[in-house]
Each structure stands twice: as structure tokens, then as C-alpha cells.
């Protein structure tokens, strides 16, 4: 008989541990979790102070005055348990979470890998302890027995499940909510009153008698008590592998070979994407050369990539890598492994493509030329401007990478009082400058939005000069509600450097400093 042994990991008082972690308390501090004014879980230190399950809040606080009381929150329990699950998954994959605080997993592979069941259990306890939680481990033939074994902290020998269970109290049948149907407490109570004190006595009853007298849940409990075969752990399936990988033989060192590779790889990727009914909006192209160098680039797109677009991107990317201008940056050996990894996928229903044409107003050839440049320089290098709301000339244009949705920083259709009228400066800068008055003292903008003195001179590296004209200041009254905003007024002014015809500039006063924001030329 092939027996797949089961390992259970039980974290004691999990709701209390999660509540302590959420409140930032030490694991040793007394914590009680309340539901409907009754304690449903408490930490070991609270239990030592006399707190018990089922106590009222006031009574619990009377027994342990420093008790931290939290309300029950299944979401919090599950959230904090994710760390433990991840730690266990790192060591042994496909663990099944029965409830937050209780994990089961098939032990066979782990036992073989770590040498013995004992060693596997020790490694798992260590891993969970590294995640910041204490736990107990139990191993048995059957899943329910393993859970009881974990509560006892024991490894039950193969075939001895029924022996181990027979000594347990009949009340234990109802202690684990994930293994019991809602009416199990009544059943345990009834069996107790009938004189059946341990699980062994219950298991000795005939199945027909149990079924005819106590109902379906009792039959389930009876199977459990006899350690009869039940379901095994069913861990979460790893997500389907969507990557398309190609081992290039012969290795790719020319662009035309790369084009062929890209075409077939794109075809493979799109078959697997179609198979799972998703589209790819962010694609990572990964290449390994014969010398072990790894090249990586992620492409982003506002709309899912078609097969042709994927093939083009692979070709451009390989072209970019193989033909870098700077020979030192080029890979030192031909490419041997090529991998396409869909980093971000969207389900087919979530896609809403416009009815006509691409979302951008560009022609195909222009768009393709820009995407090629992205292949040379990276996806962030090509930016598309879009009008945005704002007051300064730099704020009113938002640049987004080509392919991303062009979302302005702020709504341009709002009124934006204080916006500078036309014309705007053709050169945008952000250089600190000094504005001085006739005596050489710095000019500020006062709280009333006026110059503290008449500006007479501009001092900045390379841009020193007398001012022949100035206008402003025009105060900008924005974000006064924002606590992050630095103190002081913000205002803009136009100045004209002396000369024929001189140089007109836009200055911005913020955080008690002047900045040269733009030049009109």
C-alpha cells in the first residue's frame, strides 16, 4: 500500500499572534482576540495570567490588566500568515493552507530531500521561526491525524495513526474547526455523555451503528477516528508557465538570425498566451550569451502586443544589443539562450481596444521608428508630450514614455487661475539665480506678493547683467493645504537683461530662492 504521509504545521494561537504583529507588540506580550465580547484566542503569556477562551472581555482584563485586546479579523490573520506560507513554500512547495495558522503538505519529497522526516520537520520549524513565528509540526499517514499530531508535536509512525488517535479525548474531535462541520461540538458532547471518553472507543463502534444514529458528520468523524484514507493535501498550483525559451543553436551573432529567432519565439509565446486567454502588456526580453552575460530589457505597452509587434521588438532589441555603437558595451559572445517572459498580462475580457486604429495619432512608420529607438536606448528614452494642467510652463506639458497611456499630470481643462499667458519661453531651465537691488542686496517676494525692493541686477554663472525691465511678481497661490509644501511664497516674474535687444527671462521665486525657469528666444 502506498502511503503518502502528511506533515502539518500548526502555529499556536494564530489570531493572537497576528493581532500582536499588527499592533507592533512583542510576541511575548499578552494579547486576546475577542469576538462578540468573548475571548476566542489568546497568547501564551495571557493564558499564563489566567485568560481562557470564552471569557468576557471585562473578566479577561481583570485577570490580566496589561492585556492587549483586539477584535477578530480573519483578513488580518490571513495577511500575516502569508509570510509563513511563503517561508514554507521556499523550502517545500505546494503547501495547503487549511486556515490561517495551519498548513499541511505532502512530506514524501521533503523527507527524501532532507534525508528523513525528522530532518524535514526540523528544517520547516527553522524556516517558520526565521519568518518570526513559533510552530509545531506533526507527521502522520492521514491529513486529520497529522493535524492532531501537530497539536501534540509528534511524528506518528507509519500505520500507527489509529493507535495515536485512540488515546485522545473525544472532545478533541471538535477542537480543530477546519476539520469539523459546524455541529461537531454537540456530537462530541453527546458521545461524552454516552460514556465514550476517547477516540479509540468511538472508532470501535461499527460504521453502520454510527451512520444510523448520528448523521453524516458523525460518519466523517468516525472515518477520522479510524484513520481511514481521506483526501491528501492539495496545495496551490504554480501559475502556468507562459515563458517562451529558445536555446539558440548555432548561437546568434547576426541580426538576420535574430529576426528568425524572434519570429518563432513570438509565435510560441502567443500560442501560450492565447491558451491561457491573456494578452501581454509588459514583456521582458532576456538573453544569455555564450560567455554567461545576461542582457535584460522590459518593454511596456499601453495595449497588448500582437505577435508581429512582439517579433519586431525581439528583433530590434537583439539588433540593439549586437550592434551597440560602443564596442565595449557589446556582448562578447553570441547569444545562446533567448527568453520572452510576459511580466504583466491582462485577461482578454479586460481589454477594451478603440474601434478604429491605434490609440496614438501617429502613422505606422513613425511609430515603428520611435519603437526602434526605444530598442536602442530603453523604453523610457522616447517620450510623448501631452498637455497638462498647471501654471508654470514646465508643469503644463507632461511627458510619458511612448507606449504608456499618455495621462496628464493634472487636468488641463480646469481654469488654473494665475496661469501665465502666451507666449511661453522656448527654453526651459531650472537654475538657481540671484536677483539683486540697486545696492546689491537680494530681492525677495514679500508675504503680500510684492518685491521687497526694485530688482536691478541678475547674478548667475554666465548670465550676469543689469536688468533694463521687469514685470511681476505674479504670486502663485497653490497647494497651501499641502503639509509637504515648503514655507514661503511662490511667484513668477519676467525680466529683461540689458542689451540690444537683451534677453528676456522667466524667473520663479519659491522656497525663498529665485530660479531661472525659462528664456524667451
Amino acid at each position, binding site marked *: 500500500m502506498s502511503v503518502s504521509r502528511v506533515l502539518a504545521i500548526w502555529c499556536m494561537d494564530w489570531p493572537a499572534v497576528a493581532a500582536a504583529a499588527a499592533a507592533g507588540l512583542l510576541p511575548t506580550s499578552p494579547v486576546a482576540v475577542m469576538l462578540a465580547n468573548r475571548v476566542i484566542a489568546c497568547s501564551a503569556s495571557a493564558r499564563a495570567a489566567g485568560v481562557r477562551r470564552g471569557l468576557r472581555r471585562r473578566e479577561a482584563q481583570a485577570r490580566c490588566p496589561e492585556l492587549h485586546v483586539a477584535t477578530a479579523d480573519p483578513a488580518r490573520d490571513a495577511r500575516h500568515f502569508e509570510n509563513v506560507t511563503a517561508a514554507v513554500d521556499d523550502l517545500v512547495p505546494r503547501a495547503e493552507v487549511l486556515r490561517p495558522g495551519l498548513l499541511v503538505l505532502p512530506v514524501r519529497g521533503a523527507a527524501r530531500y532532507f534525508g528523513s522526516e525528522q530532518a524535514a520537520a526540523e528544517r520547516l520549524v527553522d524556516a517558520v521561526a526565521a519568518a518570526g513565528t513559533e510552530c509545531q509540526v506533526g507527521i502522520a499517514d492521514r491529513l486529520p491525524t497529522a493535524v492532531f499530531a501537530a497539536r501534540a508535536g509528534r511524528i506518528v509512525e507509519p500505520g500507527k495513526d489509529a493507535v495515536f488517535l485512540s488515546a485522545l479525548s473525544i472532545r478533541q474531535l471538535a477542537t480543530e474547526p477546519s476539520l469539523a462541520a459546524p455541529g461537531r461540538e454537540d456530537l462530541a458532547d453527546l458521545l461524552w455523555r454516552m460514556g465514550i471518553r476517547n477516540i479509540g472507543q468511538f472508532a470501535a463502534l461499527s460504521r453502520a451503528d454510527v451512520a444510523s444514529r448520528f448523521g453524516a458528520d458523525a460518519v466523517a468523524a468516525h472515518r477520522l477516528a479510524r484513520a481511514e484514507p481521506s483526501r491528501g493535501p492539495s496545495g496551490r498550483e504554480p501559475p502556468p508557465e507562459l515563458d517562451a525559451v529558445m536555446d539558440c543553436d548555432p548561437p546568434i551573432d547576426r541580426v538576420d538570425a535574430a529576426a528568425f529567432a524572434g519570429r518563432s519565439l513570438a509565435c510560441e509565446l502567443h500560442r501560450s498566451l492565447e491558451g491561457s486567454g491573456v494578452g501581454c502588456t509588459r514583456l521582458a526580453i532576456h538573453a544569455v550569451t555564450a560567455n554567461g552575460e545576461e542582457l535584460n530589457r522590459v518593454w511596456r505597452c499601453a495595449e497588448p502586443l500582437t505577435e508581429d509587434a512582439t517579433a519586431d521588438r525581439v528583433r530590434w532589441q537583439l539588433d540593439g544589443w549586437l550592434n551597440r555603437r560602443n564596442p565595449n558595451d557589446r556582448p562578447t559572445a553570441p547569444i545562446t539562450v533567448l527568453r520572452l517572459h510576459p511580466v504583466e498580462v491582462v485577461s482578454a475580457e479586460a481589454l477594451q481596444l478603440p474601434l478604429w486604429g491605434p490609440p496614438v495619432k501617429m502613422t505606422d512608420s513613425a511609430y515603428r521608428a520611435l519603437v526602434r529607438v526605444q530598442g*536602442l536606448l530603453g523604453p523610457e528614452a*522616447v517620450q510623448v508630450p501631452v498637455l497638462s494642467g498647471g501654471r508654470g510652463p514646465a508643469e503644463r506639458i507632461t511627458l510619458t514614455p511612448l507606449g504608456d497611456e499618455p495621462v496628464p499630470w493634472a487636468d488641463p481643462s480646469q481654469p488654473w487661475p494665475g496661469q501665465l499667458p502666451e507666449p511661453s519661453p522656448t527654453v526651459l531651465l531650472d537654475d538657481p539665480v540671484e536677483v539683486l537691488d540697486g545696492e546689491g542686496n537680494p530681492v525677495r517676494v514679500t508675504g503680500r506678493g510684492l518685491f521687497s525692493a526694485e530688482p536691478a541686477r541678475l547674478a548667475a554663472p554666465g548670465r550676469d547683467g543689469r536688468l533694463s525691465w521687469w514685470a511681476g511678481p505674479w504670486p502663485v497661490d497653490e497647494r497651501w493645504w499641502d503639509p509637504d509644501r515648503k514655507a514661503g511664497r511662490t511667484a513668477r516674474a519676467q525680466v529683461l537683461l540689458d542689451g540690444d*535687444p537683451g*534677453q528676456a527671462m522667466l524667473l520663479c521665486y519659491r522656497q525663498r530662492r529665485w530660479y531661472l525657469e525659462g528664456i524667451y528666444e
Partner: protein
Amino acid sequence: MSLDQRRLDRAEQVEHLRHKIAAISGKVGPGRRGEGSSNDVLPELESLLPLPELSPASGWYPQTERLPTALSRGTVAVLSGARSLPLSMVAAVTAAGGHAAIVGQPDVGLLAAVEMGADLSRIAVIPEPGADPVEVAAVLMDGMDLVVLGLGGRTVPATRARAVVARARQKGCTLLVAGGDWQGASARLEARVSGYEMTCGSGGRISRVRLAMRARGRSLGSVHAVGG
């Protein structure tokens, strides 16, 4: 092979050679825009790229000394001086339905281009073109009608320039080089601010920038003097 056939071949050959000559001279013949569906989009851009007609209403006021009306498509021109000049050309091209890319000018004020009538959805900006901006510009010529290339003080030697010029001519894309030198450029345009106009009164501000422009070179359209 029959005689007719041979004559036909010959006629085809002549036609083919004519096309080649036309393409090389860059003045007539079907450029990239001359064929297919794009023909109806940009008929006026077929061979000449219009220089901006800056109307006084737009706030940008050209006070020109010698104003060329157009720049041949597929040429390389070196710009110097005021930045309004390349921006106004970007505005003119995109307003007419063409595409423009601005390479290597991270400080460009695109809002000014919008005020001159540019269509932002047809503009792409490559602020940091890396170590070789000329290469990026050459790639962009495939699909763009106008590429503004900021060289950042570099000089492109004649050997390198020749290949890019040939590509520009073949693709029908005009390359405007700013902030550097391009040896053997067929046109040089210089713009400078000739004056500012301010609104009067207490709330005075700059309302117009007057530009003076000077052009010299081979591939300019009809050049006429305008009193400034």
C-alpha cells in the same frame, strides 16, 4: 524576345533611371510621401518643407531680413541662434499632419510650440539620446518628416555626415541640426531675437518676441528679401 518587349524594357529602364535622378536631386519625383495613401495627407509637403509663417497674432513675430519660404525635403540644415526657429518648424510640420522628433534637447519648451500651433500627438521627444545622437536621428528618419537634433556642441565630420545626408534624402526627412556643427550642410539658418514687445500698463508683460532670420545655402526655396 520580341522587339516590342525589348522596347518596353528600354522604356521601363529609362523611366527607372529618371526616377533615380529625381530621387537624388531631391527636387521632384515621388519621395516617400509621393506614393500610396500618404499622398493625400501631405500634398503640400511633397518636396518642400514650409518654413514657418509666424503670424503676429501667435505672439511670435518674425522680422526677417531674407526669408526663405521653404526648405527642400530631405535636406540637412544647421540652425543657430534663437530656439523659436526649430520649434516653429516643428509646429508647422505637425500642424500640416507630419511627424516630428526632437532629439537631444532636454530643455525644449514644448508649450511654446503648442502656442505656435503644433499638434503634440505627432511629436516625440528623446531628451537623452545616449552617446550617439546622430545614430538615433538616422533611425528616426525612417518614419519622421522632421527631426530636430541637438548635438550638444559636437561636430559631425563630413564622412559620417555624408551617410546620414544620403539617408535623409532617400527617406524624405528633413534634419535640423542645432547646437553643433554639421560639415557640408546644404543650408544654414540663423535666427536671433531682434526685440521684445511688452504690453503697457502696470500689469505689463512680454507679449511678443520679434525674430530676425538669415538663411544661406543651396537647398532653400525661393528666397526673397523682406523689409525688417
